[in-house]
């Protein structure tokens, strides 16, 4: 091997109270696809920010092509040939594709010329894009193409991709991988961040594994099993959740012909949704983000109302009832966004427990809050769901994602719901907390509750679901038994490749 493209040696970065990166060193060769693996909070994002010039290291050095490399800001990083595709926060919804691309370039040509360039490059890499469309109207897969094209137009030597496949259908992932392999063959190195182990095994040449800010191993992922990689990431072995529930033939929830316009600009309409959920059953609902997941949860929880008999709980029409009335009848929900939707960030855990538990746990009487009971309820959640926190007086904001998620799910589970609807129950949660949450959902189903689990994590859905359905542009497919579904079948249910085509290699 010649000179490595990028050398990291002894990078350390500390934030108050936490060492995000502790003496991390590794090399990336030109044309190499290098995976960066680790759980949430392992320090992957911080490391990438160091390389992209968003933060500077406390100590340690980087070298690019053998020359010292210390970007002061992202512009300097881009000028040195380092480009990045972000997981969040990097597109401007109200601007057009071409404008978004222009903002990510340092010397963007005039709009007309840029549009032509976008078309040329996007066709060459099999990622067709119309430069004049507004980004807010694009699907998640198309939005990602905008980011990739933005990077490719600058001929990067190193392309950093942060969790690029979390928003894609399996078919779209396949096309993305073809594009990445083509880039790698042309000599562009790729630093690929993910926690999807099978993807890393099929795509990456090398992997660096981080745990709690430290590099714990380097390996060739194709030579390891997914379970071995997971063990290196987590540090212990994980048991897959067990389930022994029997689905009864009694219907718990029935939705028929549900149509809802979007609540806000760039939202998705629900189109003619019908589903039947039996007692003791887990229905997994997959689909790419932004295909109506939030809207479906809102329609089921009662945040958005519809005609009374479009939603029936235990045979009773509830479509016109609000969330509190539905909770009273036993239909509970835990939305995706933990801070701000499922929990109030600046309120204590006791107060947050009270907010949804007040009806079914009788925590208030005649308008007066029974604080002792509310605190007791919060303590029960903390105890039974192993929420790591000093106590129920702590603000929700202070909990880590995984702990808060355990609290949010526990709060609903302990209310003995007839039907529980959860959206992305393990999003951004570390592997052991995710396993605990899945097990809690399965235990609830065993007790006879019916569960709808909306998620973008297909592995999770296959693990816990009895039946599987997919949301695609506001339509819900017919639910099929989850056992025996292949990844191709699931992909087609999710809407296939959304008009993508493979790279013209």
């Amino acid at each position, binding site marked *: 091997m010649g000179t490595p493209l990028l050398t990291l040696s002894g990078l350390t970065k500390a934030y108050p109270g936490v060492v995000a990166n502790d003496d991390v060193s590794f090399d990336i060769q030109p044309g190499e696809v290098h995976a960066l693996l680790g759980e949430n909070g392992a320090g992957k994002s911080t490391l990438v920010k160091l390389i992209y010039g*968003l933060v500077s290291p406390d100590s340690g050095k980087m070298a690019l092509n053998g020359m010292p490399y210390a970007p002061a800001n992202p512009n300097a990083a881009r000028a040195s040939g380092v480009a990045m595709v972000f997981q969040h926060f*990097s597109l*401007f*919804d*109200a601007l057009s594709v071409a*404008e978004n691309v222009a*903002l990510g370039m340092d010397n963007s040509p005039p709009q007309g010329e840029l549009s032509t360039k976008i078309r040329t490059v996007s066709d060459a890499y099999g990622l067709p894009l119309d430069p004049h469309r507004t980004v807010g109207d694009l699907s998640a897969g198309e939005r990602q193409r905008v980011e990739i094209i933005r990077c490719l137009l600058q001929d990067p030597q190193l392309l950093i991709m942060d969790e690029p496949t979390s928003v894609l259908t399996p078919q779209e992932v396949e096309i993305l991988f073809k594009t990445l392999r083509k880039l790698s063959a042309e000599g562009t190195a790729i630093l690929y961040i993910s926690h999807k182990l099978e993807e890393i095994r099929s795509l990456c040449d090398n992997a660096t594994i981080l745990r709690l800010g430290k590099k714990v191993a380097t390996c060739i992922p194709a030579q390891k099993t997914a379970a071995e990689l997971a063990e290196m990431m987590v540090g212990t072995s994980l048991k897959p959740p067990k389930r022994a529930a029997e689905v009864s033939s009694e219907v718990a929830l029935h939705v028929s012909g549900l149509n809802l316009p979007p609540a806000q600009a760039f939202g998705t309409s629900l189109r003619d949704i019908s589903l039947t959920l039996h007692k003791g059953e887990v229905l997994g609902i997959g689909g790419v983000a932004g295909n109506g997941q939030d809207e479906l949860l809102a329609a089921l929880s009662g945040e958005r109302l519809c005609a009374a008999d479009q939603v029936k709980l235990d045979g009773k029409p509830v479509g016109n009832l609000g969330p509190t009335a539905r909770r009273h009848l036993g239909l509970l929900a835990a939305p995706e966004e933990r801070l701000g939707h499922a929990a109030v960030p600046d309120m204590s855990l006791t107060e947050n427990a009270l907010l949804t538990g007040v009806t079914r746990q009788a925590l208030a009487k005649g308008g007066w809050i029974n604080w002792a009971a509310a605190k007791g309820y919060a303590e029960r959640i903390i105890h039974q769901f192993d929420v790591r926190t000093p106590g129920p007086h702590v603000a929700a904001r202070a909990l880590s994602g995984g702990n808060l998620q355990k609290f949010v799910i526990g709060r609903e589970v302990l209310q003995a719901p007839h039907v529980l609807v959860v959206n992305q129950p393990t999003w951004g949660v570390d592997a052991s907390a995710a396993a605990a949450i899945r097990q809690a959902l399965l235990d609830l189903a065993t007790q006879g509750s019916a569960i709808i689990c909306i998620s973008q994590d297909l592995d999770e859905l296959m693990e816990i679901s009895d039946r599987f359905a997919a949301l695609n542009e506001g339509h819900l497919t017919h639910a099929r038994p989850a056992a025996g579904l292949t990844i191709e079948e699931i992909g087609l249910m999710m809407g296939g490749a959304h008009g993508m085509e493979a790279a013209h290699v």
Partner: protein
Amino acid sequence: MDLSSINPVLLLASLMVAATPLLFAALGELIVERAGVLNLGVEGMMITGAVSGFIIAVESGSPALGFICAAIAGALLSLLFALLTQVFLANQVASGLALTLFGLGLSALLGQGYVGIKPPSTPKLDLGMLADIPFIGRVLFTHDLMVYLALALAIAIWFFLHRTRAGLILRGVGENHDAAHALGYKVVMIRFAAIAFGGACAGVGGAYLSLVRVPQWTEGMTAGIGWIALALVVFASWKPGRVILGAYLFGGVNVLQLNLQAAGAAIPVEYLAMSPYLVTILVLVIMSAERSRAPASLGRPFHASH
């Protein structure tokens, strides 16, 4: 009532004058809001501009110098707001309201010795032949430079926002400040510049009131025009063209109701006085009924987390 006493030519000509202060203030606020900042201090910056422009013009005898100083005074006051909201991350709504109250008080203090004085008159632009065209010439071409400057500013702002890279960056910052930061743009600096520009425009608008439109200094003479400017920006869907339309509509109804008052219309004066506010808001509400979006980061505090 004697309607014949209302001269349509004079009416239309004074409409342009009446609209100009509002147009300046609203255009400045448009840029501020496009950068994602909600500055409710327009009224305070306008009246500070009005009093400082007036004082400087009276003392120096030069209206031009008055306008320049009004712009500087408005910008300085707005930088106080920028410091509070962008550096100390204070609440934008509360800081804006405080700025208005502060501006009203400060201007009353500064203007104490200047009540009842006449400012040096701002010369009309000599447009020669054009002003001699019957009717149109009298309506359009007999004004001072500031009237045309306000219109030119609206066009320049449109061009800046939609045709220049700097304008694109400004819109990007207002749309998603986290993304703009991640791409390496200096969100806080860009917003400081936008806020200062907004302050300067509001200051000039205020000075136009005290130097041309009224022309004299009275306490609280902006009389809510700053608030109308704020409403105008929202109802104009953050588009400079519509801001012109709204400002001229407001100016038109305002001039008309003054004329009606003078002609002794049989409507109580209070109703006439509220009509420009009502009509402007009503028309713009109807216009903004179509789908239009505020800059997505508007009013949200930005704090770089790394």
